[in-house]
C-alpha cells in the first residue's frame, strides 16, 4: 500500500520492542465481540491509475459550468480564479499545516490571516474581521447569536430579501437557544417595512445586500432606527465582488457584516468548501465568534502574529464559549487573500464593473423579449425575471439545450405560488458575448 511505510520486518521489530506477539494484542481493550474478525464489506485497495480512471468517469456524469452558457448564482458564483492562487494553496507548507497554535513555526499561515482580516475589514468598511467562518450561511447564524450576546435581547428579524437557505440555517441554530427568529415573507421587490417591526425585544435585523433577488437598498435609515433602540444591523453579502462597486456596509451603519467569500479565489465545488467572512465594530470584538489573528512581538522584539482572544473560544471557555466553532475555512481564506492581493484596489473595482456591465447588457436584452420582465429597479450582477411560463420547466428545457439558465425560485420556495414563474439570473466576468447570445436565443425558442 503506497501510503504506508512500515514493512513486515519493521512491524515485527516494533512488536518485539513493545513486547507483544501480534498487532491485535494492542487492541486488547476492545470488547472481544466488537473486534472484527474479517475485513468490512468494501472493495480492496486500488492503485493510483485505477482510482483516477474511476473518479474521472464519475466526474464526467456532471455538466461543469465552464462547458456551457451559465447564468446561475443565488449565493455561489462562477468567477475566474488566477492560476497563481491554486498553485500557491497547494504548496505543502500551507496545505498540510495544522491550525497555527504554535506561532513560532506558523508565521506563514498567521501573517496571511492577518492580511485576510485586514482585507475583509477594508472591503466591508468595518473595524475588525475574524479569521473566517465555515461559510456565509453559518456565519449568518453566528451573527444572530452574537447580536443577542451584545444586546442581551432575543428577537432577530430576518428580512424577506435574505437567501432563504440562510434564513433556514439561522432558524436551525437558534432552535434550541432562547432566541426568537422572525422570518419575513419573501420580498421580491426589496420593499419591506423593517423599521416598523423593531421593538424593545429586537436584538437585530438581518438584511442581505444586494438582496437575494438582486435589489440594492440603502439601509442607513434602518441602521439609525435600530441603534436608537439599542439593536444591531446585520448585513449579509453573498456576492462579495459587489462591494467593489456599491457602497460599503460600514458606511451604512452595519454592526456586523457577514459575507460569503467564495467568489474570490474559490471555485463552485458544488457548494463547499466556501469561506465565511465576518466583520464587526471594535467595541464588539470580544463577543465575536471564531478564531482571530493578532499582531505581537517575539522575545527578540520582532513583529510576529498569533491567534489571540482565545478566552472567547471553546477550548478555553468550554460551555461558556461564544461559539462551538473550532475550525475556520483555512485554505479557502488563503485563496481569498491571494486572489484579492492579485486584484488589488484597481483589479477589484475593475472586476466589479465588468460583472455589473454584463448583467446590465443581459437585463436589457431579456427585458426586450415578449412576455419577459426584469423585476429589479437596481441590481449588481444578478436580477429576477418574470417569465410567461413555469420557470422550472423553462430551466429544464434550456438545460437539455445546453444552457444553465439560472435558478427557478420555486426550487428554494417550493410552497410559494408567486415564485412559480420567477427566474434568478446572474452574470460574471466569465460570461461571454456568445453565451449571452445563446441564452437569449434559446430562451426565445423555449417561450415560443
Amino acid at each position, binding site marked *: *500500500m503506497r*501510503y*504506508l*511505510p*512500515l514493512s513486515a520486518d519493521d512491524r515485527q521489530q516494533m512488536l518485539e520492542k*513493545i513486547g507483544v506477539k501480534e498487532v491485535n494484542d494492542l*487492541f*486488547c*481493550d476492545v470488547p472481544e465481540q466488537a473486534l*472484527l474478525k474479517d475485513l468490512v464489506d468494501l*472493495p480492496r*485497495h486500488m492503485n493510483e491509475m485505477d482510482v483516477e480512471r474511476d*473518479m474521472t468517469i464519475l466526474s464526467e456524469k*456532471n455538466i461543469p*459550468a465552464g*462547458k456551457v452558457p451559465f447564468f446561475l448564482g443565488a*449565493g455561489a458564483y462562477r468567477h475566474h480564479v488566477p492560476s*497563481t492562487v491554486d498553485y500557491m494553496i*497547494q504548496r505543502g507548507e*500551507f496545505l498540510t*499545516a495544522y*491550525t*497555527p497554535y504554535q506561532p513560532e513555526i506558523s508565521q506563514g499561515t498567521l501573517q*496571511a490571516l492577518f492580511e485576510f482580516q485586514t482585507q475583509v475589514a477594508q472591503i466591508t468598511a468595518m473595524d*475588525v474581521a475574524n479569521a473566517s467562518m465555515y*461559510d456565509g450561511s453559518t456565519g449568518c447564524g453566528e451573527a444572530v447569536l452574537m447580536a443577542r450576546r451584545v444586546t442581551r435581547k432575543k428577537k432577530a428579524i430576518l428580512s424577506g430579501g435574505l437567501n432563504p*437557505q440562510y434564513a433556514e440555517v439561522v432558524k436551525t441554530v437558534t432552535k*434550541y437557544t432562547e432566541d426568537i427568529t422572525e422570518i419575513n415573507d419573501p420580498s421580491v421587490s426589496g420593499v419591506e417595512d423593517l423599521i416598523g417591526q423593531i421593538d424593545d425585544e429586537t436584538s437585530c435585523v438581518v438584511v442581505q445586500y444586494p438582496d437575494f433577488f438582486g435589489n440594492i437598498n*440603502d439601509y442607513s435609515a434602518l441602521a439609525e432606527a435600530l441603534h436608537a433602540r439599542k439593536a444591531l444591523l446585520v448585513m449579509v453579502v453573498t456576492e462579495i465582488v459587489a*462591494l467593489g*462597486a456599491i457602497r*460599503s456596509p460600514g458606511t451604512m451603519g452595519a454592526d456586523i457584516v457577514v459575507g460569503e467569500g467564495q467568489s474570490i479565489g474559490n*471555485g463552485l*465545488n458544488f457548494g*463547499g*468548501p466556501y469561506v465565511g467572512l465576518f466583520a464587526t465594530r471594535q467595541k464588539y*470584538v470580544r463577543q465575536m465568534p471564531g478564531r482571530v*489573528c493578532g499582531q*505581537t512581538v*517575539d*522575545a527578540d*522584539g*520582532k513583529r510576529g502574529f*498569533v491567534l489571540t482572544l482565545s478566552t472567547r473560544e*471553546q477550548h478555553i*471557555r*468550554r460551555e461558556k464559549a461564544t461559539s462551538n466553532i473550532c*475550525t475556520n475555512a483555512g*485554505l479557502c*481564506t*488563503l485563496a481569498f487573500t491571494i486572489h484579492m492581493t492579485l486584484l*488589488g*484596489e484597481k*483589479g477589484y473595482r475593475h472586476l466589479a464593473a465588468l460583472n455589473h456591465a454584463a448583467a*446590465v*447588457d443581459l437585463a436589457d436584452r431579456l427585458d426586450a423579449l415578449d412576455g419577459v420582465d426584469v423585476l429589479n429597479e*437596481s*441590481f449588481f450582477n444578478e436580477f429576477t425575471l418574470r417569465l410567461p411560463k413555469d420557470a422550472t420547466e423553462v430551466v429544464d428545457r434550456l438545460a437539455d439545450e445546453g444552457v*444553465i439558465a439560472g435558478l427557478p425560485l420555486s*426550487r428554494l420556495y417550493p410552497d410559494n405560488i408567486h415564485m412559480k414563474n420567477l427566474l434568478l439570473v446572474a452574470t460574471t466576468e466569465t460570461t461571454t458575448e456568445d453565451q449571452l447570445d445563446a441564452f437569449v436565443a434559446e430562451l426565445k425558442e423555449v417561450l415560443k
Partner: protein
Amino acid sequence: MMNNQGRQTDIKTAANLGGGSQSTFTGNQGLEQEELLIYEIGDNQRTGVDLRPVPEHKSRLGGLTRDNDIGLAGLSEPETMRHYTRLSRQNYAIDMGLYPLGSCTMKHNPRLNEKIARLPGFADIHPLQPVSTVQGALELNDSLAHWLKTLTGMPAVAMSPKAGAHGELCGLMSIRAALEKRGEERTIVLAPESAHGTNPATAALCGYKVKAIPATEDGRVDLEAFKSALGPDVAAIMLTNPNTCGLFERDIIEIAEAIHAVGGYFYCDGANFNAIVGKVRPGDLGIDAMHINLHKTFSTPHGGGGPGAGPVVLSEALSPFAPVPYVIHGTDEFELVEHVSEELGSGDSYGRMTAFHGQMGMNVRALTYMMSHGSDGLARVAEDSVLNANYVMASLSDVMSVSFEGPCMHECLFDDRFLEGSGVATLDFAKAMIDEGYHPMTMYFPLVVHGAMLIEPTESESKQSVDQFVGALRSLVQSAKSGDTERFSGAPYHAPRRRLDETGAARKPVLRWSEDKA
C-alpha cells in the same frame, strides 16, 4: 495612501520589523527570508490580473456607488508569488516532518486527492444546477455515504456538517429532536472531564447543561460515577472513543446499555476514529450518533486550520431527524431532498445546517482516499497508527512518565512527572522540540493529567522516522534532567520567530493592518 508614496530614499526592508540583533541590511539570513505585509510592499495602483476593458453601460446600482478608496494593496503576479512563497516557508507542515499533534491525526495528504477534487466535473459544478446535470456529484455523495455507513456499521449518515464541531451540533440536535418527538424534555448532557472543549460548547448551543463525569485511575470513564449520574433528565452522553487519553473505553458497551436504559442517547466524538477504522464498527458498540472528521481519518488537508468536514453517522432511532439536504435513490436517477416536508418524507428533520449541500470538495478527497486504501488498507491504517504510537510509548517509557499503563491506541499520553525538579515545564519541553525540527505534541490536553503531552505519530511515519523522533525526545529528556535549562527556557532558538508575546496580543488586540499603526 500607501507606504511607497513620498520618502523616495527610504528603502523598506524587513530589517524594520524590530528586534535588536539585526546582522544584515535586509533582515534576511541566507535562505531565512523575512517578509513584510502586502500593505508595506504593494499599493493601490498595482495589480496581478489583466481584465478586459469595461464596456459602456448605464449603471443600475440604484445610486449606491462606492466612491471612496477601499485601501486594498495590490501586487503584480511575480510579487504575489514571491510574497506567499516566502510566507509558506515560515510554516511547519506534514510534508516537512513528523507532526505528532495528539487528537489531530496529522497524516500524509495524498496529492491524488487534490487532483481528483479539481476535475471540472467536481470543482466546477454549481450546487443549484438542475439535478439532472449533477448526477455524478450525487452518486459520489451516495458512495461516500455507503463507505461511511459500512465502516461504522450504522444505517444512516448526515453529509452536510462542515466540520467536527458542526457535526457534534448535528448529532445533538438530532438527539434533541428525537426526544421532543417522544414528548420528553431532558436537560442534561454528560461528558467526561477529558472531553474536547467543543463538546460542552455544543451541548450549550442545544440548550443542555453539561455534567462532567470523572475519570478513573486508568484514564477511562468512571462507570460507577456515570451510572449514578444517569436519570430521566439525561438526554445523552458525549464520549470520545478511543478517548482523549488515547485509550479504548473498555466499558463502552455497558455505557451504551446504561444510557439507553434510561432513555438517553449515546453521542460519540469520532475525532479518534483513525485508531479503529476497519477494525471496530461504532454501530456494534451501541452508539447512536458519531461525527467523522474527514480531515483527520480520511486525510483531507488541514490547510492551516480548515476547511474541515464532519459527516455524522446515525442510528435507526435518530435517522428520521437528520438535517436536509440528503440524497435519495429515485426511480431512474439520484434525487435531492432539500426541504423539510411530510410529503418528501423529511417531516421529522430538524432542519438545515448550511446553505447548499456541505463540503463536496472534501467528500471527493475522502472518497478518493478510501478507494485507494480499500477495506484492507484502512484496517492497516488503524493497525499501523496504533503500532507506531505504542512503539513511541515503549521507546520512551524508561525516561518519560507514561500516564496510564497498558497499550494505548493511536496516541500515547505522557505527563510532566519526569520533569519534576528540572525547572523545565511542559511548554518549554515542547518548544525545544521545535529546535529539533519537530512540531510540538499536543500540550496540556487532556486536562485529566498534569502537564499532559499527547503524541500521535500516525501510520504515515516509517520506523526510521519514529526512531529519529524518539532519539530527539530522549536527548531533550537528558538535557532537562542534567540541568541544561537554557535549551528549554529560551526555546525555540532556530525558528522564524522566538517565543511570541501572547499576553500582550490579547491585552491590546491589533487585528488588522492600518496606516497609523504601521
